[in-house]
């Protein structure tokens, strides 16, 4: 109350902040504050005593919580190899510490709300514009500094300093350039481990697959032969080369003329990497022959060369041309004929 009177009585305080551009002719009248309502603790000393006891009890609860945390830590020890014991230990100790800290917090807030001096207080915002004296002094300092340093007088000094400051961030250009891939990313994105004669093998065992193994309605998760033997970048290669192998009735497949020999008697292989943002597409429905991407519900129709029939994907899944070798194992005819996975800047299509 006292501050409010002081502020409104201040002679220099401007009525409105200079930031307000539009001044309404008929502003909504400020209704002011409702009359101050005393709390029960202000009126009744018995209530005040009761609230004090409650806050004391909360602080005691906090002490009990802290002691209980130590006791529970001992009662529920972590037994190596037993995950259940880790769960119990962390859960009980955490609950006890939470109780201890929460009781302090609730007690302190309740203290301030129920017992501390509770009058209403209004603090007006300061005006944005400083007083004339402050502004004048600031301009003075600026002029003084200019005179003492000779910033406008010693032009050569000033200009070389400005040039040095402008040039100094230039090394960042070289440093930021290093954030780009060391090698051209396009060949990396365009080529996978698949090549002419590479056998299709089971994920994760890496055993080759005979055409006869793939019965009607089957779905095999496929990795290229030799992937498991890679010493470096195995997961990077797998992320590009993962393939889903399915067998449909040959008469169900609608094959375009240039892909006549890409399937083997109804066995087709498609990249498992979604052309939208690269999730593994493997939710194959063997009756509808739809392939669903679990991330954004793109659907691909396997009977029509993985054409997109629903969802945000733009392009069909790339097909891996396959055939069988002399031993009856499924092999790739070549690498994918287009980059797998989502679009990238340099992709030409």
């Amino acid at each position, binding site marked *: 109350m006292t501050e409010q009177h002081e502020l409104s009585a201040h002679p220099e305080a401007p009525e409105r902040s200079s930031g307000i551009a539009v001044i309404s002719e008929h502003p909504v009248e400020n209704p002011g504050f409702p009359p101050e*309502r005393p*709390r*029960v*603790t202000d009126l009744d000393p018995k209530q005040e005593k009761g609230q004090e006891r409650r806050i004391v009890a909360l602080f005691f609860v906090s002490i009990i919580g802290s002691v209980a945390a130590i006791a529970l830590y001992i009662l529920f020890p972590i037994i190596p190899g037993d*995950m*259940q014991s*880790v*769960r119990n230990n962390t*859960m009980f100790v955490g609950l006890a510490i939470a109780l201890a800290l929460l009781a302090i917090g609730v007690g302190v*807030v*309740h203290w301030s*709300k*129920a017992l501390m001096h*509770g009058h209403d207080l209004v603090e007006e915002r300061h005006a944005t514009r400083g007083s004339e004296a402050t502004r004048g002094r600031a301009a003075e300092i600026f002029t003084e500094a200019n005179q003492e340093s000779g910033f406008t007088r010693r032009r050569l000094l000033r200009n070389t300093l400005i040039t040095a400051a402008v040039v100094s961030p230039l090394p960042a250009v070289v440093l930021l350039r290093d954030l780009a891939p060391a090698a051209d990313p396009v060949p990396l994105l365009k080529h996978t481990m698949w090549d002419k004669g590479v056998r299709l093998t*089971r*994920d*994760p065992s890496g055993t080759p*697959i*005979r055409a*006869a*193994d*793939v*019965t*009607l*309605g*089957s*779905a*095999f*998760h496929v990795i290229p032969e030799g992937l498991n033997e890679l010493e470096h970048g195995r997961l990077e290669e797998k992320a590009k080369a993962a393939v889903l192998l*399915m067998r449909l009735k040959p008469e169900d497949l609608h094959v375009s003329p240039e892909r006549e020999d890409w399937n083997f008697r109804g066995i087709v292989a498609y990249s498992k990497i979604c052309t939208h943002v690269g999730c*593994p597409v*493997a*939710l*194959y*429905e*063997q*009756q*509808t022959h*739809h392939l*669903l991407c*679990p991330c954004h*519900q793109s*659907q691909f129709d396997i009977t029509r060369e993985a054409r997109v029939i*629903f969802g945000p994907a733009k392009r069909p899944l790339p097909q891996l041309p396959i055939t069988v070798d002399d031993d009856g194992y499924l092999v790739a005819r070549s690498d994918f004929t287009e980059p797998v996975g989502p679009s990238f800047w340099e992709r030409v299509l």
Partner: protein
Amino acid sequence: MAALIVGGLLGTGGAYALATIPAGAETSAASAAQAAQGEALFAANCASCHGLDLQGTEDGPTLIGVGAASVDFQVGTGRMPLAMSGPQAPSKPVQFTQEQIAALAAYVASVSPGPAIPDEQYLTGENADLAQGGELFRINCAMCHNVAGAGGALTEGKYAPPLTGVSPVHIYEAMLTGPQNMPVFNDDNITPEEKANVIAYLKYLETTPSVGGASLGSLGPVSEGLFVWIAALGLIVGITIWLTAKSN
């Protein structure tokens, strides 16, 4: 005394031998009777959709070559007989006794051979390689059935059902036959031993309590997000109101 024991042993052994010798003939007679019972059941309950000779009709696919495993799965989980047509046959209370299901399976298998009901040794989960079962599950099954086997949605009302509470024999048969829209995982793709490991892994998931606290149905961000938005955000809003309200 010894003579008595020898006599007793010989007597029981002989009785056993006598009892087992004609068992082969009895079994084939029994299976013929079983298949005949199955044929009657089939004609009464299945033939209107699948055809009297299993050839299929406009309303149902042919059952030639589906084998006993398929019948045991479809009828044993209550999916067949179908209550009504829809995107997918749901699992519902089983309509037949185990004996009747076995008879139906024997009949369908007698008409034309197909995948058989799996051997008991692959269903017990003994000496299973849980790590391999888990890896195979994550590669082949988890994208549809959820990483914890809690099931998930497919397209146009179809869904991959939850795998909790499904008996080992039905899990095995589902992999083997590829019911409805599930792809087939035949023994050349996932060997019987590997199937046994997958089943053991699923049973391990089911029986091992969640060490990370309440699993909320293992549905991932959906149920967990719902809980956080309603319970945790509600708590924060409540505390904020309490902090700013004036004490009475």
